[in-house]
């Protein structure tokens, strides 16, 4: 026998419902935007000139300041450059990094939208939600690491192609990647575990009068 949940009517007011719908729509939009942006970016990787962001350590010139304040010291750490003559391996690595990153974002966005829907239906603590959150967590952790690895490989390959001895060049063997999503992935895995407990507690309340 199925027991109807009263969570939605008992706990969610109109503003909660609005916020959940807003989150679901925003998550869906972010997911779609990530995929569309990735397709466009990957398309631009296979032309003659490829736009890339390389790590660098270049001093900021002292005469960059012309006002009353002066620059004591400073450096640029990134440069947006357009490079030609990149080999296919680097292009595929960059494309892979962008694709993995976008797919990770899309999967997490879909999970958020599905979670909002489950909360709106008044039954968030179901097995499918626990699995979805666990999958999103693993995807986020693995996706971030894979995308970072591919990006670093591509950057090193490009830097090596730009300068035979990159240690003394403008662009040394360096790569920067945002590992923030990795932390979010770890948080999501804890949330998935909490949902597993919630699922058990919800099961315990079924048939309670």
């Amino acid at each position, binding site marked *: *026998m199925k*027991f*109807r949940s009263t969570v939605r009517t008992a706990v969610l007011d109109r503003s909660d419902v609005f916020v959940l719908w807003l989150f679901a729509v925003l998550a869906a939009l972010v997911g779609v935007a990530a995929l569309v942006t990735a397709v466009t970016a990957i398309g631009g990787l296979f032309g003659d000139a490829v736009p890339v962001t390389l790590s660098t350590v270049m001093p900021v010139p002292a005469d960059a300041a012309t006002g009353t304040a002066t620059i004591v010291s400073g450096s640029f750490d990134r440069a947006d450059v357009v490079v030609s003559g990149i080999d296919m391996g680097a292009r595929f690595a960059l494309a892979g990094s962008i694709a993995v990153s976008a797919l990770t974002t899309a999967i997490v966005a879909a999970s958020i939208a599905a979670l909002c829907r489950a909360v709106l239906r008044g039954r968030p603590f179901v097995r499918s939600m626990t699995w979805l959150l666990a999958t999103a967590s693993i995807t986020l952790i693995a996706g971030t690491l894979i995308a970072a690895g591919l990006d670093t490989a591509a950057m090193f390959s490009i830097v090596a192609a730009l300068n035979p001895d990159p240690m003394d060049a403008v662009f040394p063997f360096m790569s920067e990647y945002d590992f923030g999503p990795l932390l979010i992935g770890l948080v999501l895995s804890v949330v998935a575990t909490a949902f597993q407990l919630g699922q058990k507690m919800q*099961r*315990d*309340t*079924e*048939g*309670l*009068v």
Partner: protein
Amino acid sequence: MPPADDEATGVHCRLDELLAERGMSLTELSKRVGVSIVNLSVLKNDRAKAIRFSTLTAICEVLDCEIGELLVRARP
């Protein structure tokens, strides 16, 4: 060991008999106790797996009976 989710609880609710003895309907009991008809129906048909003390005492107060009169062990 607690019973599995789909197993019988081994508890029979005598709500039907007590209501009949007092000439009271489930709807009236629902109004007086403040528990939905759906939940009372679940209780009446032995489909409940747990009952709050507050629900139990409220029903017994309205029906003027002891808890042991409302809930008995189901005969196999």
